[in-house]
């Protein structure tokens, strides 16, 4: 089922949770809504589910305007952050619930309901636990029950709110892989909310990065990482270094010193690059030069903190091969190999980079 959002806005009282935004989700896609808390990602998910009503705009399920349908009739499988299992019902009763509340005409028989619930319990790898109560299950098991319960109504869209938020690191990783499998096997259009970029990047076909009630970028994990559409995305995803620069006569300078990078336009801007995307080979008199303040081992690389100016200059962190020895006080000169310019935050209107250049 395609889900289309057209100019959706949501206000709570006088505060805007979502500014007019549009989004197309294709049938069968696995989409992550990624953003820091307060970015509006959960509100967006709840709007799609029908748990909230938009202040403006339309939500389309396929060709149908969902606004006409209350949440009960939307057939969305919603997995809540804290699972919201019915604690007075057994696991089996929880999973059967959605079928047993259908109008009499479309309700399956009791034995059929039971058969399907048991089948789903097998599917979520919890066979034999149907008689337990939610309190008797582990966090990961509850998550699976919540998913089985949502799948039982044969949802048109599967929505998950911070599905792994409340779990231990190890369980998270296992369930993440498993959710991907479930998605690939059932083919449901799946939207999940997360604040964990690793989770979003690993699991999703496409990632929707949100900030302050706006969509910053929609793209595949590669696009999001390699071509961030805004300063926010660059800073939010992965590691980044940011540096104030001036542009003039086609040259980018930091504190008056040319970096050996070229760009059009003039005026102040901010340069973004990733710590590991640098080159130590520079022409004389060019590039960023700094003294080593501290260094530490990060995975297979050595992260070095450099002071760019004599005393109170900017500090940046870059990665160099772990085999290379440095000591405090050494001077290192480098320039970014993959970088982006975004306007100064004050002039930050369109969130668009001025110029992108690969050296």
């Amino acid at each position: 089922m395609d889900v289309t959002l057209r100019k959706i806005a949501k206000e709570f009282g006088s505060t805007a949770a979502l500014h007019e935004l549009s989004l197309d989700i294709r049938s069968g896609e696995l989409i992550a809504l990624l953003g820091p808390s307060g970015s509006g990602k959960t509100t967006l998910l709840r709007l799609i589910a029908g748990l909230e009503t938009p202040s403006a705009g339309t939500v389309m399920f396929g060709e149908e305007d969902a606004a006409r349908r209350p949440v009960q009739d939307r057939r969305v499988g919603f997995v809540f952050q804290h699972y919201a299992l019915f604690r007075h019902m057994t696991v089996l009763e929880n999973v059967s619930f959605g079928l047993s509340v259908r109008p009499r005409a479309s309700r399956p028989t009791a034995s059929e309901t039971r058969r399907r619930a048991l089948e789903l319990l097998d599917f979520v790898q919890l066979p034999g636990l149907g008689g337990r109560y939610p309190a008797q299950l582990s966090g990961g098991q509850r998550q699976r029950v919540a998913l089985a319960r949502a799948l039982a109504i044969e949802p048109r869209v599967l929505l998950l709110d911070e599905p792994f938020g409340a779990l231990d690191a190890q369980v998270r990783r296992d369930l993440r892989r498993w959710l991907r499998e479930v998605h690939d096997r059932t083919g449901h259009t799946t939207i999940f909310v997360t604040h964990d970029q690793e989770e979003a990047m690993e699991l999703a076909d496409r990632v929707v990065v949100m900030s302050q009630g706006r969509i910053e970028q929609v793209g595949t994990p590669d696009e999001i990482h390699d071509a961030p559409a805004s300063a926010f995305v660059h800073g939010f995803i992965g590691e980044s270094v940011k540096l104030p620069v001036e542009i003039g006569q086609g040259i980018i300078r930091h504190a008056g010193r040319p970096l050996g990078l070229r760009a059009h336009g003039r005026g102040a801007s901010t340069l973004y690059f990733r710590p590991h995307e640098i080159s130590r080979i520079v022409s004389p008199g060019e590039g960023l030069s700094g003294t080593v303040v501290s260094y530490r081992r990060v995975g297979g690389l050595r992260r070095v903190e450099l002071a760019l100016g004599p005393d109170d200059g900017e500090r940046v962190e870059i990665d160099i091969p772990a085999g290379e020895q440095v000591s405090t006080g050494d001077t290192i000169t480098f320039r970014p190999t993959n970088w982006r310019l975004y306007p100064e935050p004050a002039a930050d209107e369109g969130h668009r980079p001025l110029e992108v250049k690969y050296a």
Partner: protein
Amino acid sequence: MPSDTLALGAGIPAPTTEAPWARRALMLAAFGFLALFLALPLASVFTEAFRQGPAAWLAALTEPDALAAMRLTLTVTAIAVPANVVFGVAAAWAIAKFEFRGKALLISLIDLPFSVSPVISGLVYVLLFGSGSLIGPWLAHHGVEILFAVPGIVLATIFVTFPFVARELIPLMQDQGTTEEEAALSLGASGWQTFRRVTLPNIRWGLLYGVLLCTARAMGEFGAVSVVSGHIRGETNTMPLHVEILYNEYNFVAAFAVASLLACLALVTLTVKTLLEIRYGAALAATRKH
């Protein structure tokens, strides 16, 4: 897909509340019930009390027997409440701050008076001190009056109000745990200093709350006191017993006048209780939950 939901009209009902008409109906039923069972009886106390004007009301309250009843009620309360405060704090300290065997049993025993009829609470003292008991004749011989005298009334009142303070404090102190006390002790405070400067400030609103409920019950207790009092006018009549006597004498205005005073007391109790809950709701949360 069925499209009958289109008939819902303009608004889609919010998923977690009832339709407006249902909400109104439920509220109406609840308010009607409360009016019929709570508000009207309360109102009738005051209308009956002032049926013959404020002068008659005042006369009924200032009559010597009424004044004696008030004095006795205050005396009994002044003994029973502090006694149960000491007990309540000690019990809560022992139960909330320590782990020991038989704790659940102890809590059940403290709650026992809640599940005993007030009349039985009085009866137990009649059996204990009455002429048929072991110590009754001995007491009578030495001229010690307990039954049908003030001591009996005090004992019966303590019995029925026994759990009130402890009941409020136990969940509150259990909720607060022992870390603050341990911190105080590790900083060199003595046990008494720890209690006075760390524990007591933490539980004071809960304590006040318990004292309030205990006082209200102590002043209003009827059944237990009725059994042990002997109903001697001007001597062993508490206010509620005085109300009964006047009522049985068909002196309704006087009965309701004294009753109105007790009702005022109840209203003060409710007001203070509500104010406490508004101001110190968070500090009392554990208490409210039990």
